[in-house]
Protein backbone atom coordinates (compact mmCIF):
# COMPACT_ATOMS: atom_id res chain seq x y z
CA UNK A 1 0.00 0.00 0.00
CA UNK A 2 1.12 3.55 -0.75
CA UNK A 3 2.58 5.51 2.12
CA UNK A 4 1.50 9.13 2.22
CA UNK A 5 3.07 12.14 3.87
CA UNK A 6 0.56 13.26 6.48
CA UNK A 7 -0.46 16.91 6.18
CA UNK A 8 -2.61 17.39 9.28
CA UNK A 9 -2.33 21.20 9.05
CA UNK A 10 -2.07 23.85 11.75
CA UNK A 11 -5.68 23.70 12.96
CA UNK A 12 -5.85 19.95 13.51
CA UNK A 13 -2.23 19.60 14.62
CA UNK A 14 -2.11 22.45 17.10
CA UNK A 15 -5.68 23.25 18.03
CA UNK A 16 -8.12 20.33 17.65
CA UNK A 17 -5.87 17.24 17.58
CA UNK A 18 -8.71 14.91 18.59
CA UNK A 19 -9.70 14.95 14.92
CA UNK A 20 -6.33 13.43 14.10
CA UNK A 21 -6.94 10.73 16.71
CA UNK A 22 -10.04 9.41 14.97
CA UNK A 23 -8.38 9.80 11.57
CA UNK A 24 -5.40 7.71 12.55
CA UNK A 25 -7.63 4.99 14.01
CA UNK A 26 -9.65 4.84 10.79
CA UNK A 27 -6.58 4.99 8.54
CA UNK A 28 -4.99 2.13 10.47
CA UNK A 29 -8.06 -0.07 10.01
CA UNK A 30 -8.20 0.74 6.31
CA UNK A 31 -4.48 0.21 5.78
CA UNK A 32 -3.70 3.81 4.83
CA UNK A 33 -0.08 4.30 5.85
CA UNK A 34 1.33 7.72 6.66
CA UNK A 35 4.57 9.29 7.84
CA UNK A 36 5.56 12.76 9.04
CA UNK A 37 7.48 15.56 7.39
CA UNK A 38 8.60 18.97 8.72
CA UNK A 39 5.91 20.90 6.87
CA UNK A 40 5.17 24.54 7.61
CA UNK A 41 1.71 26.11 7.33
CA UNK A 42 0.32 25.26 3.89
CA UNK A 43 -0.26 28.47 3.94
CA UNK A 44 -3.91 29.40 4.48
CA UNK A 45 -5.69 30.07 1.16
CA UNK A 46 -8.18 32.41 2.87
CA UNK A 47 -5.62 34.21 5.05
CA UNK A 48 -2.00 34.28 3.95
CA UNK A 49 -2.85 34.22 0.24
CA UNK A 50 -4.72 37.48 0.78
CA UNK A 51 -1.62 38.86 2.51
CA UNK A 52 0.93 37.94 -0.17
CA UNK A 53 -0.03 35.78 -3.12
CA UNK A 54 3.52 35.26 -4.35
CA UNK A 55 4.61 34.25 -0.85
CA UNK A 56 1.68 31.82 -0.80
CA UNK A 57 3.05 30.18 -3.95
CA UNK A 58 6.59 30.00 -2.60
CA UNK A 59 5.65 28.59 0.81
CA UNK A 60 3.27 26.08 -0.75
CA UNK A 61 5.95 25.01 -3.22
CA UNK A 62 8.44 24.71 -0.36
CA UNK A 63 6.10 22.24 1.35
CA UNK A 64 5.63 20.29 -1.87
CA UNK A 65 9.43 20.03 -2.18
CA UNK A 66 9.54 18.25 1.20
CA UNK A 67 7.21 15.53 -0.09
CA UNK A 68 8.97 15.40 -3.47
CA UNK A 69 12.24 14.77 -1.68
CA UNK A 70 10.78 11.48 -0.42
CA UNK A 71 8.80 10.87 -3.61
CA UNK A 72 5.58 10.44 -1.66
CA UNK A 73 2.10 11.82 -2.24
CA UNK A 74 0.54 14.05 0.41
CA UNK A 75 -2.68 13.13 2.19
CA UNK A 76 -4.42 16.19 3.63
CA UNK A 77 -7.02 16.32 6.41
CA UNK A 78 -8.03 19.91 5.70
CA UNK A 79 -9.88 21.53 2.81
CA UNK A 80 -7.76 24.67 3.09
CA UNK A 81 -4.42 22.85 3.02
CA UNK A 82 -5.55 20.68 0.10
CA UNK A 83 -6.76 23.77 -1.73
CA UNK A 84 -3.47 25.61 -1.24
CA UNK A 85 -1.20 22.72 -2.15
CA UNK A 86 -3.26 21.75 -5.20
CA UNK A 87 -3.72 25.40 -6.20
CA UNK A 88 0.01 26.04 -6.02
CA UNK A 89 0.65 22.96 -8.14
CA UNK A 90 -1.98 24.03 -10.66
CA UNK A 91 -0.60 27.54 -11.01
CA UNK A 92 3.02 26.47 -11.29
CA UNK A 93 2.12 23.79 -13.81
CA UNK A 94 0.16 26.21 -15.99
CA UNK A 95 2.47 29.21 -15.78
CA UNK A 96 6.10 28.61 -16.66
CA UNK A 97 7.07 32.21 -15.82
CA UNK A 98 5.68 31.84 -12.30
CA UNK A 99 7.36 28.47 -11.90
CA UNK A 100 10.72 29.87 -12.97
CA UNK A 101 10.35 32.80 -10.60
CA UNK A 102 9.39 30.63 -7.61
CA UNK A 103 12.18 28.18 -8.36
CA UNK A 104 14.65 31.05 -8.38
CA UNK A 105 13.58 31.83 -4.82
CA UNK A 106 13.63 28.18 -3.79
CA UNK A 107 17.11 27.75 -5.28
CA UNK A 108 18.42 30.26 -2.73
CA UNK A 109 17.50 27.81 0.01
CA UNK A 110 18.74 24.82 -1.97
CA UNK A 111 15.42 23.54 -3.27
CA UNK A 112 13.65 23.03 -6.56
CA UNK A 113 9.97 22.45 -7.20
CA UNK A 114 9.46 19.78 -9.85
CA UNK A 115 5.80 18.85 -9.68
CA UNK A 116 6.36 15.11 -9.25
CA UNK A 117 3.94 14.26 -6.45
CA UNK A 118 0.18 14.38 -5.99
CA UNK A 119 -1.84 16.03 -3.23
CA UNK A 120 -4.92 14.11 -2.11
CA UNK A 121 -7.79 15.11 0.14
CA UNK A 122 -8.48 12.14 2.42
CA UNK A 123 -12.12 12.07 1.25
CA UNK A 124 -10.88 11.54 -2.29
CA UNK A 125 -8.61 8.71 -1.13
CA UNK A 126 -11.45 7.07 0.80
CA UNK A 127 -13.87 7.22 -2.13
CA UNK A 128 -11.51 6.38 -5.01
CA UNK A 129 -8.76 4.21 -3.58
CA UNK A 130 -10.41 2.50 -0.61
CA UNK A 131 -14.02 2.31 -1.77
CA UNK A 132 -17.36 2.02 -0.02
CA UNK A 133 -17.28 -1.78 0.38
CA UNK A 134 -13.95 -1.75 2.20
CA UNK A 135 -15.11 1.07 4.46
CA UNK A 136 -18.29 -0.83 5.23
CA UNK A 137 -16.24 -3.85 6.22
CA UNK A 138 -14.51 -2.06 9.12
CA UNK A 139 -17.74 -0.71 10.65
CA UNK A 140 -19.21 -2.88 13.38
CA UNK A 141 -22.25 -0.85 14.36
CA UNK A 142 -25.05 0.44 12.15
CA UNK A 143 -25.98 4.09 12.62
CA UNK A 144 -29.48 3.34 11.38
CA UNK A 145 -31.89 6.08 12.44
CA UNK A 146 -29.27 8.83 12.62
CA UNK A 147 -30.10 11.82 10.44
CA UNK A 148 -27.03 13.56 9.03
CA UNK A 149 -26.59 16.87 7.23
CA UNK A 150 -23.39 16.79 5.14
CA UNK A 151 -21.17 19.81 4.62
CA UNK A 152 -18.17 19.07 2.39
CA UNK A 153 -17.09 22.73 2.38
CA UNK A 154 -15.88 25.07 -0.33
CA UNK A 155 -12.23 24.23 -0.74
CA UNK A 156 -12.75 20.52 -1.00
CA UNK A 157 -14.34 21.07 -4.42
CA UNK A 158 -13.76 24.64 -5.60
CA UNK A 159 -12.27 25.92 -7.80
CA UNK A 160 -12.83 22.70 -9.73
CA UNK A 161 -9.80 23.27 -12.00
CA UNK A 162 -7.52 22.95 -8.97
CA UNK A 163 -9.37 20.36 -6.97
CA UNK A 164 -10.27 17.80 -9.64
CA UNK A 165 -12.67 15.90 -7.41
CA UNK A 166 -15.23 13.62 -9.00
CA UNK A 167 -17.84 15.81 -7.34
CA UNK A 168 -19.97 18.51 -8.87
CA UNK A 169 -18.57 21.67 -7.21
CA UNK A 170 -22.06 23.07 -6.66
CA UNK A 171 -23.91 19.78 -5.99
CA UNK A 172 -21.50 17.56 -4.10
CA UNK A 173 -22.47 13.95 -3.39
CA UNK A 174 -19.33 12.06 -2.36
CA UNK A 175 -19.47 12.95 1.33
CA UNK A 176 -23.10 11.83 1.31
CA UNK A 177 -22.08 8.45 -0.10
CA UNK A 178 -19.34 8.13 2.49
CA UNK A 179 -21.78 8.91 5.30
CA UNK A 180 -24.51 6.63 3.95
CA UNK A 181 -22.29 3.50 4.28
CA UNK A 182 -22.65 3.80 8.06
CA UNK A 183 -26.39 3.12 7.77
CA UNK A 184 -27.19 6.71 8.71
CA UNK A 185 -29.75 8.67 6.73
CA UNK A 186 -28.40 11.63 4.80
CA UNK A 187 -30.89 14.49 4.83
CA UNK A 188 -30.84 16.96 1.95
CA UNK A 189 -31.05 20.65 2.80
CA UNK A 190 -31.35 23.74 0.69
CA UNK A 191 -28.05 25.40 1.59
CA UNK A 192 -25.74 22.40 1.11
CA UNK A 193 -23.25 24.24 -1.09
CA UNK A 194 -23.23 27.34 1.13
CA UNK A 195 -19.91 28.30 2.71
CA UNK A 196 -19.59 27.97 6.51
CA UNK A 197 -18.30 31.55 6.54
CA UNK A 198 -15.15 30.83 8.51
CA UNK A 199 -12.99 33.24 6.48
CA UNK A 200 -15.28 36.25 6.56
CA UNK A 201 -15.87 35.71 10.29
CA UNK A 202 -12.22 36.54 10.92
CA UNK A 203 -12.73 40.03 9.51
CA UNK A 204 -16.44 40.68 10.02
CA UNK A 205 -17.87 38.56 12.80
CA UNK A 206 -21.46 39.73 12.37
CA UNK A 207 -21.40 38.89 8.67
CA UNK A 208 -20.08 35.43 9.46
CA UNK A 209 -22.83 34.87 12.02
CA UNK A 210 -25.58 36.01 9.65
CA UNK A 211 -24.25 33.60 7.03
CA UNK A 212 -23.99 30.75 9.53
CA UNK A 213 -27.55 31.40 10.66
CA UNK A 214 -28.74 30.97 7.09
CA UNK A 215 -26.86 27.69 6.90
CA UNK A 216 -27.98 26.41 10.31
CA UNK A 217 -31.63 27.37 9.72
CA UNK A 218 -31.56 25.21 6.62
CA UNK A 219 -29.92 22.30 8.46
CA UNK A 220 -32.38 22.54 11.33
CA UNK A 221 -35.34 22.64 8.94
CA UNK A 222 -34.13 19.38 7.40
CA UNK A 223 -34.33 17.74 10.82
CA UNK A 224 -30.66 16.73 11.07
CA UNK A 225 -29.38 15.16 14.31
CA UNK A 226 -25.76 15.94 13.49
CA UNK A 227 -23.61 17.70 10.88
CA UNK A 228 -20.74 15.82 9.25
CA UNK A 229 -17.79 17.75 7.81
CA UNK A 230 -14.41 16.95 6.27
CA UNK A 231 -12.56 20.15 7.14
CA UNK A 232 -11.25 21.44 10.50
CA UNK A 233 -12.05 25.08 9.68
CA UNK A 234 -15.67 24.24 8.91
CA UNK A 235 -15.70 22.00 12.00
CA UNK A 236 -14.65 24.88 14.22
CA UNK A 237 -17.09 27.30 12.64
CA UNK A 238 -20.05 24.98 13.26
CA UNK A 239 -18.84 23.64 16.60
CA UNK A 240 -17.83 26.87 18.34
CA UNK A 241 -20.15 29.43 16.75
CA UNK A 242 -23.49 27.80 17.55
CA UNK A 243 -23.40 29.29 21.03
CA UNK A 244 -22.77 32.74 19.52
CA UNK A 245 -25.78 32.27 17.27
CA UNK A 246 -27.80 31.69 20.38
CA UNK A 247 -26.42 34.85 21.98
CA UNK A 248 -26.95 36.93 18.87
CA UNK A 249 -30.29 35.64 17.62
CA UNK A 250 -31.67 33.68 20.59
CA UNK A 251 -31.88 30.67 18.34
CA UNK A 252 -31.11 27.28 19.87
CA UNK A 253 -29.64 24.87 17.33
CA UNK A 254 -27.56 22.52 19.46
CA UNK A 255 -26.68 20.26 16.55
CA UNK A 256 -23.39 18.43 17.20
CA UNK A 257 -20.69 18.34 14.55
CA UNK A 258 -18.59 15.32 13.64
CA UNK A 259 -15.59 15.10 11.37
CA UNK A 260 -16.10 12.19 8.96
CA UNK A 261 -13.52 9.96 10.65
CA UNK A 262 -15.13 10.60 14.05
CA UNK A 263 -18.38 9.25 12.64
CA UNK A 264 -16.53 6.19 11.32
CA UNK A 265 -14.64 5.65 14.58
CA UNK A 266 -17.92 5.66 16.53
CA UNK A 267 -19.36 3.20 14.00
CA UNK A 268 -16.25 1.05 14.56
CA UNK A 269 -17.29 0.86 18.21
CA UNK A 270 -14.56 3.15 19.51
CA UNK A 271 -15.12 4.69 22.93
CA UNK A 272 -16.21 8.38 22.61
CA UNK A 273 -13.86 9.29 25.48
CA UNK A 274 -10.86 7.88 23.63
CA UNK A 275 -11.82 10.02 20.65
CA UNK A 276 -11.77 13.22 22.68
CA UNK A 277 -15.48 13.92 22.26
CA UNK A 278 -15.31 15.96 25.47
CA UNK A 279 -13.39 18.62 23.52
CA UNK A 280 -16.39 19.28 21.28
CA UNK A 281 -18.06 22.58 22.19
CA UNK A 282 -21.48 21.52 20.91
CA UNK A 283 -21.85 18.43 23.06
CA UNK A 284 -22.99 15.09 21.76
CA UNK A 285 -25.76 13.92 23.97
CA UNK A 286 -28.75 11.62 23.75
CA UNK A 287 -28.09 10.67 20.19
CA UNK A 288 -29.15 7.06 20.47
CA UNK A 289 -27.75 5.60 17.22
CA UNK A 290 -24.29 6.92 18.12
CA UNK A 291 -24.39 5.43 21.59
CA UNK A 292 -23.21 8.61 23.26
Amino acid at each position, binding site marked *: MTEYKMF*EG*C*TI*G*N*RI*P*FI*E*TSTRKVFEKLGIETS*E*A*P*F*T*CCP*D*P*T*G*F*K*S*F*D*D*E*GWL*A*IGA*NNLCLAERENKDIISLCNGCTNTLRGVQY*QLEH*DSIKKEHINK*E*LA*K*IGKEYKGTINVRHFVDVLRKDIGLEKIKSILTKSLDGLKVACHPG*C*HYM*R*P*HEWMETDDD*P*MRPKILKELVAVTGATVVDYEEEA*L*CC*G*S*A*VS*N*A*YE*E*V*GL*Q*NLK*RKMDSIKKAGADIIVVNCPACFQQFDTQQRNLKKEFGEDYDIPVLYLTELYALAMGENPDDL*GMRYHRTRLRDIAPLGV
Partner: protein
Amino acid sequence: MVMDFEFRKQVMDYHQGSEVIKYCYQCSRCTDNCPVSFVTDELYQFGYNPRRNILNALLGYKENIFSADPIAIWGCTVCDTCDEVCPQNIELTEIFTLLKNQSIEKGEGPEFIFQQAQAIYESGKAIPSQPALERRRESMGLPEIMAPNVDEFQSLMNNMEINKKLKVGD
Protein backbone atom coordinates in the same frame (compact mmCIF):
# COMPACT_ATOMS: atom_id res chain seq x y z
CA MET B 1 -13.40 59.16 -12.29
CA VAL B 2 -9.77 58.53 -13.27
CA MET B 3 -8.86 55.42 -15.20
CA ASP B 4 -5.66 53.97 -13.80
CA PHE B 5 -4.14 52.14 -16.76
CA GLU B 6 -1.27 50.71 -14.73
CA PHE B 7 -3.77 49.13 -12.32
CA ARG B 8 -5.84 47.86 -15.25
CA LYS B 9 -2.74 46.22 -16.69
CA GLN B 10 -1.94 44.57 -13.35
CA VAL B 11 -5.43 43.06 -13.36
CA MET B 12 -5.21 41.86 -16.98
CA ASP B 13 -1.72 40.41 -16.51
CA TYR B 14 -2.32 38.80 -13.12
CA HIS B 15 -2.31 35.28 -14.53
CA GLN B 16 -2.08 33.84 -17.98
CA GLY B 17 -5.68 34.17 -19.08
CA SER B 18 -6.64 36.92 -16.63
CA GLU B 19 -7.53 39.16 -19.56
CA VAL B 20 -10.83 37.23 -19.93
CA ILE B 21 -12.12 39.77 -17.41
CA LYS B 22 -12.84 41.94 -20.44
CA TYR B 23 -15.60 39.51 -21.43
CA CYS B 24 -17.55 40.36 -18.28
CA TYR B 25 -21.00 41.52 -19.31
CA GLN B 26 -22.12 42.33 -15.78
CA CYS B 27 -24.75 39.60 -15.62
CA SER B 28 -24.33 39.58 -11.82
CA ARG B 29 -24.39 35.82 -11.34
CA CYS B 30 -21.38 36.34 -9.04
CA THR B 31 -23.19 38.75 -6.75
CA ASP B 32 -26.47 36.82 -6.93
CA ASN B 33 -24.68 33.69 -5.70
CA CYS B 34 -22.32 35.41 -3.24
CA PRO B 35 -23.11 34.41 0.37
CA VAL B 36 -21.54 37.60 1.71
CA SER B 37 -23.49 39.89 -0.63
CA PHE B 38 -26.60 38.07 0.52
CA VAL B 39 -26.14 39.20 4.13
CA THR B 40 -24.23 42.49 3.77
CA ASP B 41 -27.00 44.06 1.72
CA GLU B 42 -28.93 44.28 4.98
CA LEU B 43 -26.06 45.10 7.32
CA TYR B 44 -24.06 47.74 5.47
CA GLN B 45 -24.84 50.71 3.34
CA PHE B 46 -22.44 49.65 0.60
CA GLY B 47 -21.89 46.00 1.36
CA TYR B 48 -19.82 43.51 -0.56
CA ASN B 49 -20.41 43.23 -4.29
CA PRO B 50 -18.14 41.09 -6.50
CA ARG B 51 -19.77 42.30 -9.72
CA ARG B 52 -18.93 45.90 -8.85
CA ASN B 53 -15.33 44.95 -7.98
CA ILE B 54 -14.89 43.29 -11.35
CA LEU B 55 -16.38 46.30 -13.14
CA ASN B 56 -14.06 48.71 -11.30
CA ALA B 57 -11.04 46.46 -11.90
CA LEU B 58 -11.85 46.11 -15.58
CA LEU B 59 -12.26 49.85 -16.06
CA GLY B 60 -9.19 50.67 -13.98
CA TYR B 61 -11.24 52.59 -11.41
CA LYS B 62 -8.77 51.90 -8.66
CA GLU B 63 -9.96 54.72 -6.45
CA ASN B 64 -13.50 53.40 -6.43
CA ILE B 65 -12.21 50.17 -4.96
CA PHE B 66 -9.73 51.48 -2.43
CA SER B 67 -11.60 54.52 -1.15
CA ALA B 68 -14.73 52.55 -0.35
CA ASP B 69 -15.40 50.88 3.02
CA PRO B 70 -12.80 48.08 3.39
CA ILE B 71 -15.60 45.52 3.32
CA ALA B 72 -15.77 46.17 -0.44
CA ILE B 73 -12.52 44.16 -0.64
CA TRP B 74 -12.30 42.22 2.58
CA GLY B 75 -15.88 40.97 2.68
CA CYS B 76 -14.86 38.13 0.35
CA THR B 77 -14.94 34.80 2.22
CA VAL B 78 -12.96 33.00 -0.51
CA CYS B 79 -15.66 30.38 -1.10
CA ASP B 80 -14.92 30.38 -4.86
CA THR B 81 -18.63 30.23 -5.65
CA CYS B 82 -18.42 33.19 -8.05
CA ASP B 83 -15.64 31.41 -9.99
CA GLU B 84 -17.90 28.42 -10.53
CA VAL B 85 -21.01 30.31 -11.60
CA CYS B 86 -19.35 32.88 -13.88
CA PRO B 87 -20.51 32.17 -17.45
CA GLN B 88 -17.31 33.75 -18.82
CA ASN B 89 -14.90 31.69 -16.71
CA ILE B 90 -13.40 34.73 -15.05
CA GLU B 91 -11.26 33.79 -12.04
CA LEU B 92 -12.87 36.39 -9.81
CA THR B 93 -11.30 35.18 -6.57
CA GLU B 94 -7.80 35.56 -8.04
CA ILE B 95 -8.58 39.18 -9.00
CA PHE B 96 -9.89 39.74 -5.47
CA THR B 97 -6.62 38.30 -4.14
CA LEU B 98 -4.74 40.96 -6.09
CA LEU B 99 -6.99 43.65 -4.56
CA LYS B 100 -6.40 42.28 -1.07
CA ASN B 101 -2.63 42.13 -1.61
CA GLN B 102 -2.64 45.76 -2.72
CA SER B 103 -4.74 46.71 0.31
CA ILE B 104 -2.12 45.03 2.54
CA GLU B 105 0.66 46.95 0.81
CA LYS B 106 -1.10 50.14 1.84
CA GLY B 107 -0.96 48.85 5.42
CA GLU B 108 -4.71 48.27 5.41
CA GLY B 109 -6.68 45.06 5.87
CA PRO B 110 -8.09 43.14 8.83
CA GLU B 111 -5.93 42.68 11.91
CA PHE B 112 -6.43 38.93 11.68
CA ILE B 113 -4.60 38.74 8.37
CA PHE B 114 -1.54 40.51 9.83
CA GLN B 115 -1.63 38.39 12.98
CA GLN B 116 -1.74 35.18 11.01
CA ALA B 117 1.10 36.28 8.72
CA GLN B 118 3.14 37.21 11.80
CA ALA B 119 2.53 33.80 13.41
CA ILE B 120 3.48 32.02 10.20
CA TYR B 121 6.63 34.13 9.87
CA GLU B 122 7.73 33.51 13.45
CA SER B 123 6.94 29.83 13.86
CA GLY B 124 6.23 28.49 10.38
CA LYS B 125 2.69 27.72 11.54
CA ALA B 126 -0.51 29.77 11.49
CA ILE B 127 -1.26 28.24 14.88
CA PRO B 128 2.01 27.76 16.77
CA SER B 129 2.62 24.69 18.85
CA GLN B 130 1.98 25.06 22.60
CA PRO B 131 3.17 22.90 25.52
CA ALA B 132 -0.42 22.19 26.68
CA LEU B 133 -1.43 21.07 23.21
CA GLU B 134 1.70 18.95 22.87
CA ARG B 135 0.79 17.18 26.11
CA ARG B 136 -2.75 16.65 24.87
CA ARG B 137 -1.41 15.16 21.64
CA GLU B 138 0.78 12.82 23.64
CA SER B 139 -2.07 11.79 25.95
CA MET B 140 -4.18 10.96 22.92
CA GLY B 141 -1.43 8.76 21.51
CA LEU B 142 -0.56 11.13 18.67
CA PRO B 143 2.98 11.48 17.34
CA GLU B 144 4.92 14.67 17.87
CA ILE B 145 4.60 17.17 15.05
CA MET B 146 7.90 17.45 13.21
CA ALA B 147 9.26 20.95 13.68
CA PRO B 148 9.68 22.91 10.45
CA ASN B 149 13.04 24.45 9.56
CA VAL B 150 12.14 27.99 10.65
CA ASP B 151 15.53 29.55 9.78
CA GLU B 152 15.35 28.31 6.22
CA PHE B 153 11.70 29.31 5.99
CA GLN B 154 12.44 32.83 7.20
CA SER B 155 15.24 33.17 4.63
CA LEU B 156 12.73 32.31 1.92
CA MET B 157 10.34 34.97 3.22
CA ASN B 158 13.04 37.58 3.81
CA ASN B 159 14.44 37.10 0.32
CA MET B 160 10.98 37.84 -1.02
CA GLU B 161 10.70 40.81 1.36
CA ILE B 162 7.53 39.45 2.90
CA ASN B 163 8.87 40.35 6.35
CA LYS B 164 8.68 44.04 5.38
CA LYS B 165 4.91 43.84 5.10
CA LEU B 166 4.47 42.67 8.69
CA LYS B 167 3.42 45.18 11.30
CA VAL B 168 6.15 44.24 13.74
CA GLY B 169 5.88 45.81 17.17
CA ASP B 170 2.42 47.26 16.56
